[in-house]
């Protein structure tokens, strides 16, 4: 199952909640304000690093650029909308609004 998170991990509970319910091996895609979780050296980067042992993290390129986020956590792969569709081909989608 592909999980998408679209809210900032600093002001909403989507990031925490999604990580609680996602199963091992599920890919997690950060979109919209959710991409702030991909930036390194913040107070949530430890949490992301820890979960990267069991889940692959992705972030949407156009959302990163729009927000000027260039220094990412190592564990995050940057993809475009074509990559988003490819993940959605392989997995059902669970959008954590």
């Amino acid at each position, binding site marked *: 199952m592909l999980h998408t998170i679209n809210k900032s991990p600093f002001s909403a509970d989507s990031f925490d909640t999604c990580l609680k319910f996602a199963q091992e091996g599920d890919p997690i895609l950060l979109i919209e304000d959710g991409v702030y979780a991909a930036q390194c050296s913040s107070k949530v980067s430890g949490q992301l690093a820890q979960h990267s042992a069991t889940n692959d993290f992705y972030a949407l390129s156009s959302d990163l650029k729009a927000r000027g986020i260039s220094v990412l956590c190592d564990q995050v792969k940057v993809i475009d909308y074509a990559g*988003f569709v490819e993940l*959605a*081909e392989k997995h059902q989608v669970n*959008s954590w609004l």
Partner: protein
Amino acid sequence: MKFAILLKEGPYNHEAADTAYHFAKAVMEKGHTLTSVFLYNDGVINVTKLMDPPQDDRHIANRWSELGAKGVRILSCIAASKRRGIEDSLLTDHSEITGLGELTDIAIDVDRLVTFGA
């Protein structure tokens, strides 16, 4: 594969309408079928033809209309539309008002129903 989109927020106020559109285009470019975009909650505000954003910004209603012209059904939930003052006379080209039964049929029919919202 067959895809459909459920869009739960209005235009401009949230990025959801943008994300849904870019995802829709990428689905079609990959050769998949996008059967429909169903608008719910404030999402129904996406299809008013009176939308008139600044010239140098994107025109979100026209985007849906453009997808509609390519055969994607652009569907606005009737109950949600009535609460927010969206009726047939306001609809942009290639969009229509329908019921939640239609969304259920879509959910049964497609391989992927992907939600965008806030």
